[in-house]
C-alpha cells in the first residue's frame, strides 16, 4: 500500500495499491504519454467527451470534499483522501483506509475537510465497513446536495469518470472506461480503466450521467490505468446499516476486530469444506481453491541443478488494510517441490533441510505477538510429514490470530515437498479447522 514509505513484501504481493496520501508519488502512478493516449481511440469524439467531463465536474464539485488527516497538533497534514455527500445532512462516504488511523489511534490523529471552494471544518467517523473499504463520515457545518448512487450498474465498456483530489493539486476529474465487475476478486470491485492517483481515495466514480457507480479505492502500482472502484451498492448498504454499524469511538478496536473476523470467516467459507488438489511428483497438494485465488508457478530451468525446485504460490488477495504493516484477512499458501536424479538420499535430505529456512512469516512486533507452535511427525494421506502449526495473537485486536502451517514431507528419498500456509486475522477455531482441511487434502499418490 502506498500510504507512507516503501511497502513490505507481503503488501506488494497484494498488488492493488490504495490511493491515499501525498506520499504516493507520480512516479508510482505515471500519467499516460501521447502514445498511450493513442490507445484510447475508440472514444467517439474527444470534444464531446471533454464537454461531458466538464459538465460532470461542475455538477459534482459542490458535493466532493478533500479529507485531511493530521497527527497531533500539527497543522501540516499527515495524509489526505477524498469523499462525497450521500445525504443532504452532511453525511459523506469515503474509504476506510482514509480514516483508519483516526479510528485506531483517535488520541493521535484528527480529521478535517476542505471543500473545492475552500471551506474547512472537522470530520468525525460515523460508521465503517472494513471489508469493502468504506466509511461514513460527518462533515461539521457542511451539507451540500448528495450525489445519486447507482447500484449494480457498472457495465463493461461504459464511459466512466473519477473525481477526487490527487496529490493535493485540487479537484480533478479523470476520464476512462468502466470494465464492469472484476470477475476473479474476493472483494467486489469495478474495474475502471482510467487514472486514479494518490489522494483520490474515497472520491466518486461516475457514469456519463453523473451518477455514482463506485467509490475510488485502488490502482495497480506497476500497471497503467488499471484502477478499481468499490461498487455503489456497498455504499448504499453502509448507508442503510449506518445505525447498526455506528461506531463507538471507545470500542472502535472491538468493531474493527469483529469486522476482520467476519471477513476471514467469509473468506474461509468461500473456499469450501474440501480443497482441490493437484499431483506434483506423486504428492496431491492443495491447488487453486477458488477463482479469486491467484496461483503462480515457477522454477529454475537450468538443466544441471542437482536438486530441481518447482514453486507454486497461491494468494487470495484478500488482505484488508488496517495500517502500515497491518493487513489481516489474507490467505496464501505455497508448495516447494524438490526432486533429484543424481543425488543420494543423504544429500537430498540435506537439501530439504536447507530449503526449510526460506519461509517468510514477517510481521511487525508492534502489531503481533510471537507464535505459539506445535511440531510433530504426522501421518497424512499415505505418507509421513513433519508438520508445524502455529498461532500468533494480534496485540491490540482481541480475538483474531494469524495461523501458520508448515509441512515437510519425510517419505521420499529423491523427491519431497515443503508447503506453508498463512491465514491472517482469523479466529483460532476457524483457523485450526482450515489447517486440518489443508492437511487433509495432502496425499501420496505416485
Amino acid at each position: 500500500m502506498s500510504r507512507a514509505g516503501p511497502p513490505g513484501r507481503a503488501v506488494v504481493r497484494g498488488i492493488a495499491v490504495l490511493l491515499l496520501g501525498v506520499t504516493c508519488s507520480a512516479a508510482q502512478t505515471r500519467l499516460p504519454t501521447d502514445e498511450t493516449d493513442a490507445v484510447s481511440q475508440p472514444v467517439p469524439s474527444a470534444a464531446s467527451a471533454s464537454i461531458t467531463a466538464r459538465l460532470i465536474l461542475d455538477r459534482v464539485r459542490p458535493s466532493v470534499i478533500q479529507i485531511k488527516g493530521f497527527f497531533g497538533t500539527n497543522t501540516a497534514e499527515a495524509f489526505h483522501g477524498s469523499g462525497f455527500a450521500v445525504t443532504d445532512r452532511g453525511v459523506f462516504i469515503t474509504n476506510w483506509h482514509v480514516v483508519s488511523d483516526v479510528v485506531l489511534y483517535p488520541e493521535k490523529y484528527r480529521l478535517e475537510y476542505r471543500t473545492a471552494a475552500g471551506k474547512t471544518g472537522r470530520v468525525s467517523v460515523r460508521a465503517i465497513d472494513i471489508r469493502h473499504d468504506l466509511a461514513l463520515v460527518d462533515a461539521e457545518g457542511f451539507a451540500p446536495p448528495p450525489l445519486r448512487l447507482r447500484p449494480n450498474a457498472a457495465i463493461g465498456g461504459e464511459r466512466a469518470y473519477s473525481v477526487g483530489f490527487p496529490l493535493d493539486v485540487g479537484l480533478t476529474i479523470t476520464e476512462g472506461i468502466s470494465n464492469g465487475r472484476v470477475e476473479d476478486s474476493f472483494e467486489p470491485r469495478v474495474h475502471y480503466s482510467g487514472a486514479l492517483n494518490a489522494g483520490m481515495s474515497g472520491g466518486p466514480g461516475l457514469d456519463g450521467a453523473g451518477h455514482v457507480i463506485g467509490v475510488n479505492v485502488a490502482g495497480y502500482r506497476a500497471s497503467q490505468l488499471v484502477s478499481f472502484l468499490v461498487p455503489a451498492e456497498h455504499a448504499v448498504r453502509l448507508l442503510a446499516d449506518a445505525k447498526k454499524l455506528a461506531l463507538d469511538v471507545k470500542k472502535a478496536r472491538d468493531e474493527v476486530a469483529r469486522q476482520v473476523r467476519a471477513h476471514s470467516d467469509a473468506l474461509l467459507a468461500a473456499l469450501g469444506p474440501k480443497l482441490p488438489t493437484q499431483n506434483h511428483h506423486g504428492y496431491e497438494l492443495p491447488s487453486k481453491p477458488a477463482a479469486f485465488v491467484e496461483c503462480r508457478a515457477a522454477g529454475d530451468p537450468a538443466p544441471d541443478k542437482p536438486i530441481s525446485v518447482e514453486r507454486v504460490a497461491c494468494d487470495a488477495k484478500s488482505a484488508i488494510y488496517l495500517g502500515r504493516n497491518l493487513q489481516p484477512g489474507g490467505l496464501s499458501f505455497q508448495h516447494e517441490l524438490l526432486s533429484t536424479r543424481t543425488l543420494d538420499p543423504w544429500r537430498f535430505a540435506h537439501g530439504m533441510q536447507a530449503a526449510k529456512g526460506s519461509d517468510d512469516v514477517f510481521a511487525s512486533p508492534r502489531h503481533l505477538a510471537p507464535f505459539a507452535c506445535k511440531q510433530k511427525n504426522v501421518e497424512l494421506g499415505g505418507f509421513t510429514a513433519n508438520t508445524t502449526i502455529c498461532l500468533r495473537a494480534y496485540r491490540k485486536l482481541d480475538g483474531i490470530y494469524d495461523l501458520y502451517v508448515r509441512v515437510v514431507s519425510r517419505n521420499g528419498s529423491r523427491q519431497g515437498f515443503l508447503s506453508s500456509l498463512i491465514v491472517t486475522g482469523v479466529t483460532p477455531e476457524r483457523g485450526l479447522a482450515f489447517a486440518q482441511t489443508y492437511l487433509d487434502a495432502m496425499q501420496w499418490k505416485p
Partner: protein
Amino acid sequence: MEAVMVVEVLSGHHRVRARHRFAAAGEVACCTVGRSVACDVVLDDPYVAAVHARITVDAEGHVTVTDLESVNGIEVGGLRRHGGEPAELDGGGVFRVGRSRLRVRTAREAVAPERADRSERWSRGAERNALAAGVVVSIAVTAFQVWTTTTQPRELSTALVTTLLALLGLAGLWIALWALASRVAFGESRWLRHATIVALAYAASTVMGGFLSVVNGSLGLHLPSAVEPVLFGITVAVALSAHLVNASPMRARFALALGVTIPAVIIAAVMWTQARGQNRSPSYVADRDHVVPPALVMRRGVSLERFTTEVTDLRPRADAKRAFVEREDPSPDDEDETD
C-alpha cells in the same frame, strides 16, 4: 659423620636450572658462590660479585649464608644483608644472590613419600594414538559434512581442500597459543598434548552434533534447542580445562572451575540473547526437526486427528505470549521488513 648439601640454581618459575652436591667428611661442608670460576657455584649474573657468598652446612643440616662483602649483598627471608654475621636459612632454604635464586637442600629435609606412577595409562604412546584417532575422526566428519553440503561433484575437491586447510590453520594457531603458554609456564611447549586436546574436542563436538541431528530426525524427538549448545559447552569446558592444566601453574581444580565457567558464561549469554529476541519476535517459528533419509526414520508419526486435537492448546499459549510481550515489551519499534 658427613655434612651434605645440594645447592640448586632456580629459574624464574622455580624450576631447577643447575644442581651442585657438596659433601665433607668433617663436621662442616661449605661452598662459595660467585661469577668467578674459582667459586664452587658459578653464576652468569651481572649483579653477582666475583666471589659473592659462602654457604655452610653442619653435620646436623643447619645452613648459613654469609655475604663476602659484595655490593648487592644477599637476600634471606625478604631481608637484604651485607657482610657481617652469617644468616641462617629457614625451612625453604631459598635465598637470593644478585638476581639469582638459589635453594639449599640438606639431609634435614623431609622427603615426601613416593608417589604412585599412573602416567603409564597416559603415556606418550597412548597420547599419540589419541591424537591420531582425533585427527582421523575430525577429518572424516569434516569430509562427510563437506560432501553432504556440496551437491556439484566438480566442486567437491575444492571445497574439501579449502575447508580442511582452513581448519588446519585455525587449529594450528590455537595449538600454538597454548604451546606458548606452556612454554612460559613450564619451559616446555607440550605440542602433542595440546594438539591431542584440540583434535579430540573437535571430533567429539562434530560427532555429537551430527549424532543429535540424526537421532532427532530418526526418532522425531524434537529435542529442545538448548540441548546441542549445552553438550557443545561441556566439550569446550573439558578441553579448556585440559589446556589450562597443561599451560598454567594453577591447580587442577581451579583449571576445571575456570574451564567450565568461561564457556558456560559465553554460551549462557548467547542463548539468553537469542531466546530474548525469539520471545519477542512475531516472525520467529521454531524448527526442532532435522530432515534425514526416509530409511533412517524409525518412528511413525501421530494421526492427523490426534495432532489437530493436540493443537487446541495453541490459543491459550498464544494468549500467554501476547500477555508476555504486552508486559515486557509494550511499545516495540515498528521495523520495516528486511530481506
